[in-house]
């Protein structure tokens, strides 16, 4: 629980430090991308700190590439 608050505080301070300068330069697209990435990062870290079971993104990669792997294995045998 404490870790969640710490992560939120860190994310908020990063946002407070960077968004005003982006606003001043009128980079709307950068603000949007920055906010999306920061939200993903904060959510991911909160999930880790709460010990939720987040599936590894590599499982998706494994799922995509395992047919090719099986094909190669069957060819070499």
């Amino acid at each position: 629980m404490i870790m969640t608050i710490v992560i939120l505080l860190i994310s908020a301070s990063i946002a407070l430090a960077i968004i005003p300068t982006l606003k001043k330069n009128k980079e709307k697209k950068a603000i949007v991308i920055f906010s999306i990435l920061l939200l993903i990062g904060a959510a991911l870290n909160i999930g880790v700190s709460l010990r939720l079971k987040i599936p590894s993104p590599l499982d998706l990669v494994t799922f995509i590439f395992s047919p090719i792997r099986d094909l190669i294995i069957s060819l070499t045998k």
Partner: protein
Amino acid sequence: MMEKEIISSRQFMIITLLFSIGTAILIIPSTVTSESKQDAWIVAIIGVAISLLLVKLFVALGNRTPTQTFIEANETILGRFFGKITALGFISLTLLSAGELLFFIGAFMKTEVMVETPTMVFALLFGIIIVYATYLGIEVFARSTEILFPIFILIFIVFVICISPQIHIENIKPILEASPKSISFSMFQFISLFSFPLAVLLMIFPSAVNVHKSAQKGFYIGSMIGGLILIIIIILCILVLGPANTAARISPSYALAQRISIGNFVQRIEVIMAVMWIISIFIRTFMYFYASVIGIAQVCKIKDHRPLIFPIGLITIGLSQIIHPNIVHSYTYNREIWPLFSGVFTVSLPLLLLIVAMIRKINGNQGNTTQSNTSSNGGNSSQSESNSNDENSTQSNNSNNSAQSDSGNNSNNSSQSNSSSNNENSAQGDSSSNSNNSSQSDSSSNNENSAQGDSSSDNSNQSDSSSDSNNSTQNESDTGNTPNSDRSGNSSDK
């Protein structure tokens, strides 16, 4: 708008060298010996030789788009839509790999050095360093590698000397026992860990390096010396630990360092040796992370990548905790999926880009064509020119500058490598503008002399005198880079 960051070709060579060693120094001995047993060193030698072909592919692609990073090259060559898709695939590879390496350093420290510390601590500390280095930029990072490189080489030499009394030559016998199938399989493993990731260097190779010709040489030399160091590590692992023992361990190099015993008095110095791979893993993680940050910024067309560093850093640190539930997952992934996954984006994609660029006749001089000769002198060409001036400071500066202001703009409009044609200008003066205008073969004619042999050279238009003077100046500027590498190559031979 931020200014463009430029690194020298020597710095690029050092980055290539340490990047290619990367995590491979820890895990490659066990992956290679598990299949081909005591013949792993033969596999490694063939693997390094094949890797040079891959480097040739990357260099050829880099020459097609000399002012762009790999991500921008995707969009230029494949068009906006397909380029974005392939670029996103490449970024997913680098981002996941950055998280994976943070996991890896955490797992290594937890299993071998500090058993009771949670992996999050290592990932966080390492992640903060990576984020800080990315915030300071590639120039600062390149200078830091120049400091880290002698430390690395020194530790490596001490490592080799200290472990050599424990060599048992019978461990390597019988030679050539492995079947061709297992040799080719483990060779694929070796290349996938050692040279597939070199494609990430395309993010800095043509666009952020000041002298293209010597940087090409640095690409070859760096990966060759990196491969040599890996070969030595593999041979030492087999000779000291034996093939079965090597294959059974997750980090055999660390077990190798544990065996060091000088007169039964100096023992357990493996953590000092571990500095070696902490340096190389730092450089590899940085490059993956930097490639992800720059890549995301360029895909989204954001001018300044710095605001994105912190969010992506948060994501990477979070990824390091979920990417592998345990070390077995990591081991299976590295063995079975990583060669395919990385092969798609680091070998097939550059190959595809190169073929499409050949068909579309993209030769690296687009974008500069519309500018008039006089106006392009200042803005367009200034970055590489000023840097090559620094490099060639041994030459007379006066003639260099005057020649540049006269004809430097021509060379920039027409030739592939701005800085090498600069050298030519400084030697030749005004008359060189003709040969510069003629073709982009300035750089490729150089290439013949530098022993890499780029096959795409057509130097029919060039006069003999120009290519001669070109060689001489080029060699002069190269001498600054080569002695270092030669020395390290010799010393690691011992």
